[in-house]
């Protein structure tokens, strides 16, 4: 069983996640966009488009304009999640010594690394709880929610709680052993998983989340980019020398009466 959880399941999870996300994005991109959906005012230049894109994707401009409370919870949740994921990668790889690169001593780096991880984790935990509370407290949102909407939050919460459990309680988790284990996974030479119940649970839940991710609304990680790209497309210009959209996609449009011919 531990062999499966530690040396087989991670590959299944990573494979399903990568293939699943690629498949979802492919199912969208293969569908034509017969008409531009430019949301006015349109960005004129590439730089302007990049700024609009960045504002929406990185700063959640739409939420900021609509509901500051939701913006705060959602933005903090996503940013702290990004911090936590980034922290896992560099923190485990360097055993908390990542800040020696900017001149800190090893002890200071490990201390700073630990503080940042704890703070990010706590923000993530609280933000997720706020989002969960919101889902039950706002009547329209409650009525709109399906079991999956709660399941998503609870699954991520379970990952966060098991992670924070290792961080905040006195359980000694041997990060060096985990690094060795992760290095084995990454180099396709898996070794047995460190036999620490709470770590195994945490790692298993992460793998479950990866498998679930592409088939749930969490796919908005990619969808938000594909959707936004349609809205910032440049508007058409006339006269048009050739049908700007005919080359690749017009022929696939299934909605016209009497076939696809012009």
């Amino acid at each position, binding site marked *: 069983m531990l062999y499966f959880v530690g040396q087989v399941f991670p590959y299944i999870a990573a494979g399903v996640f990568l293939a699943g996300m690629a498949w979802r994005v492919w199912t969208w991109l293969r569908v034509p966009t017969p008409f531009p959906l430019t949301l006015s005012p349109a960005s004129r230049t590439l730089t302007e488009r990049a700024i609009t894109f960045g504002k929406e994707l990185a700063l959640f401009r739409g939420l900021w304009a609509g509901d500051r409370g939701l913006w705060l919870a959602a933005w903090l949740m996503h940013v702290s999640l990004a911090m936590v994921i980034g922290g896992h990668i560099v923190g485990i790889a360097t055993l908390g010594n990542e800040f020696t690169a900017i001149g800190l001593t090893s002890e200071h780096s490990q201390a700073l690394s630990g503080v940042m991880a704890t703070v990010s984790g706590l923000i993530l935990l609280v933000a997720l709880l706020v989002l969960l509370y919101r889902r039950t407290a706002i009547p329209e949102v409650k009525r709109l929610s399906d079991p*999956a909407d709660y399941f998503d939050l609870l699954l991520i919460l379970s990952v966060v709680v098991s992670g924070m459990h290792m961080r905040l309680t006195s359980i000694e988790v041997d990060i060096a052993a985990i690094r060795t284990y992760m290095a084995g996974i990454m180099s396709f030479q898996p070794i047995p998983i460190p036999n620490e119940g709470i770590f195994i649970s945490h790692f298993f839940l992460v793998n479950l989340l990866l498998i679930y991710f592409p088939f749930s609304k969490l796919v*908005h990680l990619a969808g938000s980019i594909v959707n936004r790209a349609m809205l910032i497309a440049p508007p058409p210009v006339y006269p048009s020398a050739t049908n700007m959209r005919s080359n690749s996609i017009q022929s696939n449009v299934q909605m016209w009466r009497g076939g696809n011919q012009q």
Partner: protein
Amino acid sequence: MKPPMHVAKDSEVALIGYPRIPEQDQQAAFLKKLDDLRVSMRSLMVMLENCTKCGNCAKQCHSYLGTEDYNNFPAARAELMRRIYKRYFTWTGRTFGRFFGAEDFDADTISKWLTYFYQCNECRRCAKFCPFGIDTAEVTIAARHILSEIGIMPKFMQGIAVNMNKTGNNMGIPKPAIIDCAEFMEDEMREETGLAIKIPIDKPNSEVLYIPSSADFFTNIDTMIGAAKLFHYLGVNWTIPSTVLEAANFGLLFNVNVMREQNQRLKAAATALGAKLVIQGECGHGWRAAKMYTDGCSGPVSFELVHILDYCDKHLDKLPLKKLPLRATLHDPCNYARAGEIIEQPRRIMRACVEEFVEMTPNRDENYCCGGGSGILMDEMMEIRMKLGKKKAEQVKALGRIDYLAMPCSICKAQIPAVMKHYGVLDLPMGGVMDLVGKAMLLGDTK
């Protein structure tokens, strides 16, 4: 559930080429049409698959704020389609059903769609506030298309399609009456200015094709007069085609095939004339249909396509305008401000035409819809229409005394006067932006 509008009868839908599918076959036909659309419109597929149900759109939708009906909250409205889509076109919905919010097509589905997708004004304000940019207008366009493809549509839409087929305009004005109307307006202008300002219909060898809204020949003649004076002053060789005396394109509002046919009609008229420039009159969704859909429906095209406000704005410095003593405001038609790149042009024109220009709040691309958008002008829906217009009335009231409300769109011009009356804003002159240009322009005797 009984839809709030008169639904076109079997014989009526057959008349425009969309016969009603018998009830026992409706589900299959309905799902087939949904399947066709999901593989033809990336927007639909992405927007149905990515909502995280945060609820941010609820407070931004004038339809929900006005009616307070849960199904008019944008995410809930889209959910009417999303649940069926998940059930039949996603493996998670097919396998896990209710857990992922999948729902069977049932006896209520069609009437629910008819009821609520015809209370969305396709204004795109939700897309402005959605963190992903999910645009409920896309879902509404798709839903209405599916319904009409199986022969289910409001009588109002069917009637307009009949008029369009018969006369080339929504009002059903035949050519002799068009010429009469044009002569009447020419007489009006002669009386006012002493000049022979023409409104040429089907004049051969014209360089510019002007496509007014048919209502400009009927109820909003000041808009037409403003455009005619502009062309006269600039010495433009222009004409109006009797075959497409209609900037509006109601196809966009109920059936994408009908939209394409009308769009091709526009191209045919421009090509027949050899026009280098096509100018669209004051019509919101019609401008969106022309600007955003011409390439996909009728491309490539050899003419330039501009909006009358864009054209007027470009020549503003040359015009002999005398500011009218008015405190005026502008209602941004949704399809200009969120789908048509017409935002600053009407403002510059109005500042040149009136002494005081004031903004309502919110404005520009965050403006609220008038409540008539997407062709919700049915008399029998008056009560709902007034609820849809509630936000607009509040916006106008907040401005205090104003002398003119500009709304450069024929649907706004049909809806807003009724809304203002309903909410007790009386004696407020309203009309287009070109109306102001016509009145402020010093020509002939008015100099």
